[in-house]
C-alpha cells in the first residue's frame, strides 16, 4: 500500500518514471528484432525445409516458432501493456497530483498553517503562532484581507481594535480556509495513493497467473507440448475472465491494449460466446460492449422467465398459510419486478426487429453498456457513441434512482440533455450517457445523508471515465460529468478520492459534493459548475460538505438568482428553505422553464463556455 508522504510526492521525479517507460518500449522494439531474426534467419533460413526435412525438422521449426510467438506475446502483454503502460499511467497521475501540491503547499505555508498527521489523513491546522496572532488581535495581512478589515498597525488601543474586529470572525474564517486546504490536500494525496496502488496492483497481478512457456525438448515432450497448445487456446478466455472479474489489475487503457491485440476472430468469439466478459468491461470499445450487453439482457430476461415458472410451480406445491409460501411469494414478486424492469429497458432501446432504437432530434442510436438488478439496480445507457463523439456528457442521477427509473424520468432527462446539446451545437456529435453505475440511495432520510453510496461507487465512476478515454477513436472527447442531487455527491466523491478523467464537472441541485472546495476535485476550477435553481432546491442540504453554489466553494455557478444564505453558517436548513413557496421551486407556473440552466448545461457540454451566463 502506498505510504508516500506529501513531501515525498512533491519531490518525486515523475520524469524518471516516464523515462523508464520509454526504456522498456525501446527494449521491446529491440527484442522484436531478435524474434524477427529467429523467424527469418532460422525457420525460413538456415533451418528451412530445403536444408532440413524430416519429422524432427518440422518439430524443431514448430518449437522455434512457438518460442518466438510466446516471447512476442510476452513482450506485448507483459513488457509493454503491463510494465511500460503502468509506468506511463503512473507518471501522468502522480505528476498531476504533484502539480496540485506545488500550488497548494505554498498557500498553506503562507497562511502559517501546519500539516499534521498521517499521510492517509492529513490535518491542516492553525499553527501556534497563528493562534497567538489572532488571540492578541494582530492578525496577519491575508486574514485581514479575507475578513475585509484593515490590518491593525500595532499602535491602536484596545477599544479601537475591538471596534475594528467587532462582528468579524477571525477564527472562523481561518479555520474555514484551513478546512478547505485540508480537503484539497487529502484529495490530492488520496488520488496519488490510489494511482500508486493501482500501478502496483497491475504489476503484481501480472505475476500471479502468467501464461505457460512451451516445454523444452526432452522426456515427455510430446505430451507436454500437447498440453501447452491446449493451454494456449484457452489463454484469451482466461485473460478475459480475469479482466471481467476484476482480478487482472489492469486499467481500462491496458484492457484496451489487450483487446486491440486480439485477432478479429478472438474478439468475435468473446462477444458471442462470453458476452458477460465483454459487456460491462471499461476499456472494450462501445460497439462491442453494446452487442454483448444486449445479448446478456436477452439471456437474463429469458432466464428470469424460467426462474419465475419454476417458482410458480414450487408455490403450487406449498401450503399457502406457511412461512415458506410467504418467502417464496416475495421471491416470486422480486423476480417478476426484475423481469419487468429489464423488459422495459430492452424495449426502451430496441426496435421490434431487434435493431437498436434511435433517440432524439439527432437520431442517435442507444448503446447499452451495463445493467444489474441487484439493490436499486444499475443501468448504463448512452445516446450516441462515446467512442466517436466530439463531446460526452455523463449524467449521474441521485436519490431513488433505480433500474426501473432508467426507462422513466432518468431517460427523459438524458434525452433532453441529448437534444439540448444538439440544439446548441448542431455541428458536433455529443453522446449523452445515463450512468446509474452505483447503488443510489433509496430515501432522503436516512439514506441520502450517508456518504457510503458515493464511496462505494467511486471506483466504478473512475473506471468509467478512464474507459471513455481508452476507447476513444481519434482525439479525446470533451468529457463532462453532470450530477443531479446525490449524483453530485457521487461525482464529487469519485473526483476527490480516486480521480475522474473529465474535463468538466457540473453539479445540479447539490446537497454537497463531499469536499468544501472546488480545488479538491482534481479538475480545473474554471471547469467546475454548479446550479441550484434548476428543477428544485435540496431542502435538506448541504449535508455532504459546503454547497458548491456557495462562494467559498470556488468554481463557477450559473444560478439565475443569488444563492440563499442562512442566518447562521450552521443553520443550513434555512438557506434553502427561506421564502420557499412552491413544491418544485422554480420550474413552475410562476417562472416557466429555467432556460439558462438548460442552455448553460448544453454550452458546457459542447465546449461553448464563452456563452455561459
Amino acid at each position, binding site marked *: 500500500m502506498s*505510504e*508516500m508522504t506529501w513531501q515525498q510526492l512533491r519531490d518525486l521525479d515523475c520524469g524518471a518514471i516516464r523515462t523508464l517507460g520509454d526504456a522498456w518500449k525501446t527494449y521491446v522494439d529491440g527484442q522484436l528484432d531478435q524474434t524477427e531474426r529467429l523467424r527469418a534467419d532460422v525457420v525460413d533460413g538456415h533451418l528451412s525445409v530445403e536444408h532440413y526435412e524430416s519429422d524432427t525438422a518440422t518439430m524443431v521449426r514448430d518449437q522455434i516458432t512457438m518460442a518466438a510467438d510466446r516471447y512476442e506475446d510476452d513482450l506485448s502483454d507483459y513488457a509493454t501493456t503491463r510494465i511500460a503502460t503502468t509506468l506511463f499511467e503512473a507518471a501522468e497521475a502522480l505528476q498531476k497530483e504533484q502539480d496540485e501540491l506545488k500550488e497548494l503547499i505554498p498557500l498553506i505555508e503562507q497562511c502559517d498553517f501546519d500539516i499534521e498527521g498521517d499521510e492517509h489523513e492529513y490535518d491542516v491546522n492553525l499553527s501556534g503562532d497563528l493562534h497567538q496572532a489572532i488571540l492578541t488581535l494582530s492578525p496577519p495581512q491575508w486574514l485581514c484581507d479575507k475578513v475585509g478589515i484593515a490590518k491593525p498597525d500595532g499602535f491602536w488601543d484596545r477599544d479601537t481594535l475591538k471596534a475594528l474586529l467587532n462582528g468579524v470572525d477571525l477564527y472562523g474564517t481561518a479555520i474555514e480556509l484551513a478546512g478547505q486546504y485540508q480537503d484539497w490536500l487529502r484529495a490530492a494525496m488520496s488520488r496519488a495513493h490510489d494511482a*500508486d496502488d493501482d500501478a502496483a496492483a497491475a504489476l503484481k497481478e501480472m505475476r500471479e497467473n502468467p501464461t505457460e512457456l512451451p516445454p523444452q*525438448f526432452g522426456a515427455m515432450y510430446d505430451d507436454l507440448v500437447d498440453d501447452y497448445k491446449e493451454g494456449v487456446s484457452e489463454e484469451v478466455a482466461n485473460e478475459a475472465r480475469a479482466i471481467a472479474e476484476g482480478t487482472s489489475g489492469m486499467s481500462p487503457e491496458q484492457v484496451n491494449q489487450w483487446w486491440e491485440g486480439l485477432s478479429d476472430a478472438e474478439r468475435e468469439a468473446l462477444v458471442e460466446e462470453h458476452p458477460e466478459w465483454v459487456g460491462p468491461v471499461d476499456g472494450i470499445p462501445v460497439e462491442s460492449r453494446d452487442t454483448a450487453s444486449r445479448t446478456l439482457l436477452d439471456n437474463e430476461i429469458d432466464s428470469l422467465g424460467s426462474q419465475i415458472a419454476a417458482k410458480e410451480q414450487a408455490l403450487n406445491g406449498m401450503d399457502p398459510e406457511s412461512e415458506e409460501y410467504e418467502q417464496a411469494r416475495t421471491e416470486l414478486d422480486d423476480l417478476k419486478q426484475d423481469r419487468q424492469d429489464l423488459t422495459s429497458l430492452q424495449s426502451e432501446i430496441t426496435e421490434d426487429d431487434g435493431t437498436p432504437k434511435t433517440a432524439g432530434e439527432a437520431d442517435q442510436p442507444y448503446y447499452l453498456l451495463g445493467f444489474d438488478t441487484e439493490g436499486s439496480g444499475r443501468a448504463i445507457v448512452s445516446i450516441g457513441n462515446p467512442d466517436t463523439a466530439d463531446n460526452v456528457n455523463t449524467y449521474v442521477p441521485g436519490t431513488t434512482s433505480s433500474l426501473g427509473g432508467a426507462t422513466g424520468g432518468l431517460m427523459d432527462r438524458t434525452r433532453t440533455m441529448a437534444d439540448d446539446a444538439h440544439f446548441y451545437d448542431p455541428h458536433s456529435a455529443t453522446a449523452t450517457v445515463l450512468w446509474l453505475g452505483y447503488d443510489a440511495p433509496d430515501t432522503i432520510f436516512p439514506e441520502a445523508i450517508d456518504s457510503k453510496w458515493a464511496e462505494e461507487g467511486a471506483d466504478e465512476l473512475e473506471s468509467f471515465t478512464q474507459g471513455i478515454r481508452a476507447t476513444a477513436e481519434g482525439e479525446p472527447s470533451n468529457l463532462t460529468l453532470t450530477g443531479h442531487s446525490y449524483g453530485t455527491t457521487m461525482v464529487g466523491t469519485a473526483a476527490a478520492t480516486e480521480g475522474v478523467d473529465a474535463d468538466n464537472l457540473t453539479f445540479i441541485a447539490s446537497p454537497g459534493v463531499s469536499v468544501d472546495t472546488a480545488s479538491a476535485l482534481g479538475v480545473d476550477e474554471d471547469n467546475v459548475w454548479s446550479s441550484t435553481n434548476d428543477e428544485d432546491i435540496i431542502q435538506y442540504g448541504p449535508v455532504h460538505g459546503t454547497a458548491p453554489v456557495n462562494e467559498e466553494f470556488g468554481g463557477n455557478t450559473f444560478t439565475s438568482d443569488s444563492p440563499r444564505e442562512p442566518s447562521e453558517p450552521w443553520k443550513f436548513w434555512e438557506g434553502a428553505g427561506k421564502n420557499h413557496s412552491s413544491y418544485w421551486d422554480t420550474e413552475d407556473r410562476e417562472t416557466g422553464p429555467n432556460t439558462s440552466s438548460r442552455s448553460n448545461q448544453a454550452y458546457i457540454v459542447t465546449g461553448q463556455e464563452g456563452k455561459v451566463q
Partner: protein
Amino acid sequence: MAGADVFAMDPDEVRKSVEVLFEIEGEVRQHAESMAAQNAESAGPLKDAGTALGPALEEAGEWWRIHRAGGFCGLVGNTGEYLAVCAEEAVEVDDYHSGVFASIAGDLYPDRSNANASARPDW
C-alpha cells in the same frame, strides 16, 4: 511430399542455425540483464519515496528477466543444443537430455558445456 520416411539434411546449414540460436540466446539474456538493472535502478528512488510502485516494479523487472526473457533464452538454448546433436546423430526427442548434448556435441561448443550447465533442467 514430406512424409515419415523423408529425410534430408544439410549439416552445415543446421550448424549455422545452431550458431544463430546461441547468438540470439546470448543477446537476449544480456539485454534482459541490462534492462532489469536499469529497472532496478529506477525502482530505488521510488521505494525510498514510500510508493507501492517501487517494490512492485523491482519485482516485476526481476520476474521478467528470470522467467520470461529467461524462459525464452532457455528454450532457444535447449533447441540449439538439440539441433547441434541432430546435426551429428539422430536422437529421438523423448530420449534427449543435456547429457546427450555434452557427449555428442559438447566438444564442438566448448564454452557451452559448463557455462550453461545450470540452465539445463536435467543436470
